[in-house]
């Protein structure tokens, strides 16, 4: 008689795994990768490859030689961080900037807290913000490298819509005048792949495709993303109604910059987002509000990275005090 297995119930498992989830995130990012390849050419792919490889190897080295534990790079979480960080850089960024960002993202923001599941701040965003502060020139150089697939004629000017507006407003122009100067600032350009900006934010449609995929695969729930977007729309709507010449309108705010990639891929990171539904909504509202405030009143043209990092720090509090609805309790 062979020996039987004995264990407490349940005896079957749903076959979900961290690896499958991370793989789904990578699949959801692939439309944006394809678009950026078309738009920015090899330099985009170079950044993505360097990012993924660097993050995975940094995690491997730290786990194997510093923490002396079994490396868990197979779960693909480091690869996701690398790809996300690459998608958050300007296409013209040199590879070594990506390398530094990866070391900071994985080494500082993730592994020094104890690795997957223990970090407080989103590693990719910490990497990006570190680079933004350390290499401001490189990180705001939106010039567009050559691409094999696209002739340079219809390329965007190279500046992001947000920075165009920030500069225009600070030089005393009204929104109408800025728009007249820059014909590329149309919604159609933003929806498809014609906005200037970092590698991953060129096409809203590609990002939304990824969002739909994540929802269908039940990787994420829509609460965080939607509450960010709705908050941005409402807050910027109120402001632009008050003074349409100084404050940009809701559609513009949602379609430009990192709002879509941030709200779909960065804010929804499991580890650094709240666990309860109500907590998720509070977190999303906070991100949306801070984003709009930084855009309107801050010195940076874009604020979602900071907004997400700020709200990341509230997540432990939200988890402690915002509890799911219990069964049988009013």
């Amino acid at each position: 008689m062979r020996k039987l297995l004995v264990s407490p119930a349940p005896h079957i498992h749903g076959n979900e795994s961290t690896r499958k989830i991370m793989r789904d995130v990578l699949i959801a990012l692939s439309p944006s990768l394809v678009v950026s390849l078309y738009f920015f050419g090899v330099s985009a792919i170079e950044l993505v490859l360097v990012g993924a490889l660097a993050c995975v190897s940094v995690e491997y080295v730290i786990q194997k030689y510093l923490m002396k534990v079994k490396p868990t790079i197979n779960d693909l979480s480091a690869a996701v961080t690398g790809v996300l960080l690459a998608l958050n850089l300007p296409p013209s960024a040199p590879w070594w900037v990506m390398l530094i960002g990866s070391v900071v993202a994985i080494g500082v923001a993730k592994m020094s807290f104890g690795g997957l599941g223990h970090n407080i701040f989103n590693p990719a965003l910490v990497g990006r913000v570190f680079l933004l502060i350390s290499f401001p020139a490189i990180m705001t150089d939106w010039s567009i490298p050559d691409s094999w697939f696209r002739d340079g004629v219809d390329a965007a000017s190279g500046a992001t819509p947000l920075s165009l507006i920030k500069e225009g407003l600070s030089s005393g122009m009204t929104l109408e005048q800025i728009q007249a100067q820059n014909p590329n600032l149309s919604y159609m350009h933003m929806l498809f792949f014609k906005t200037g900006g970092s590698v991953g934010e060129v096409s809203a449609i590609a990002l939304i495709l990824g969002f739909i995929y994540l929802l269908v695969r039940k990787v994420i729930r829509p609460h965080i993303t939607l509450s960010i977007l709705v908050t941005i729309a409402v807050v910027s709507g109120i402001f632009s109604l008050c003074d349409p010449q100084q404050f940009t309108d809701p559609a513009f705010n949602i379609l430009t910059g990192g709002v879509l990639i941030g709200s779909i891929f960065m804010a929804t990171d499991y580890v650094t987002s709240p666990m309860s539904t109500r907590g998720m909504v509070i977190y999303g509202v906070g991100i949306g509000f801070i984003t709009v405030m930084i855009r309107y009143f801050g010195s940076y043209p874009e604020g979602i990275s900071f907004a997400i990092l700020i709200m990341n720090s509230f997540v432990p509090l939200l988890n402690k005090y915002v509890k799911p609805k219990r069964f049988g309790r009013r």
Partner: protein
Amino acid sequence: MTAAFLYTILVLGGLGLVLAIVLFVVANKFKVEEDPRIDIIESVMPGANCGGCGFAGCRAFAEACVKSGNLDGKFCPVGGNAVMSKVASNLGVVLQEKAPMVAVVRCHGTCDNRPTTNIYNGSPSCRIISSLYSGETGCKWGCLGGGDCERACKFGAIKINKRSGLPEVDQDKCTACGACVKACPKSVIELRNKGPKNRRVFVSCVNQEKGATARKACAVACIGCRKCEKVCPFGAITVQNNLSYIDFNKCRLCRKCVDECPTNAIWAVNFPVKVPQQNNE
């Protein structure tokens, strides 16, 4: 320029002063009067906060000592007589010395002695295993090997040997705090007298099954044959529920029972080489 410096110094210095006054007033107002002996006794305690004394920690123990003014039923197993004599002198009472104790694992059902009959595939915790079923072997009494004792030990004195699957006590690190005894759901571990020169004789089995059943499950099980009981010149051994037990207060370490035991269930440790099967790894 000077004005800026001056204002800064004035504002910050003033702020510091105000806060210091507030702190001083509050600290005085809410001061808790405590017997100073509590602090003194706490300072001589080992500070492990293991709870081996039955109190929540070393401070709780010190408070209890000072409050009652005596040491009845209070003993720090970690510090032993050395610490307790200091506590006693601080309290001004006489200490009744206790013989040093050590945790003893009363099971030798290694993989060879006690073959497994099934494979446990759940969380490694004795409590979970024992609440689920009788364990991986045919013996439902002995060590489950889940390592609850190892996790309970604050001194790193008890470790599961991966080869045998059984816990082993490091007698030099063991403070006899009793945490492992409480953690073991099968009551395999017992606190026994450490013995002169660390020499101890004990029955390394807790199986209360009838002889044949016990023997079938484990080669070194106590089968309750009573041979040891008969051979003991000091009346230290009793057999109850098919299981022999040596009273360590009566045992004089003559080791007659060790030679008599047909299943080698009785162990003598730290004696000079005489008994071939003794080896306290």
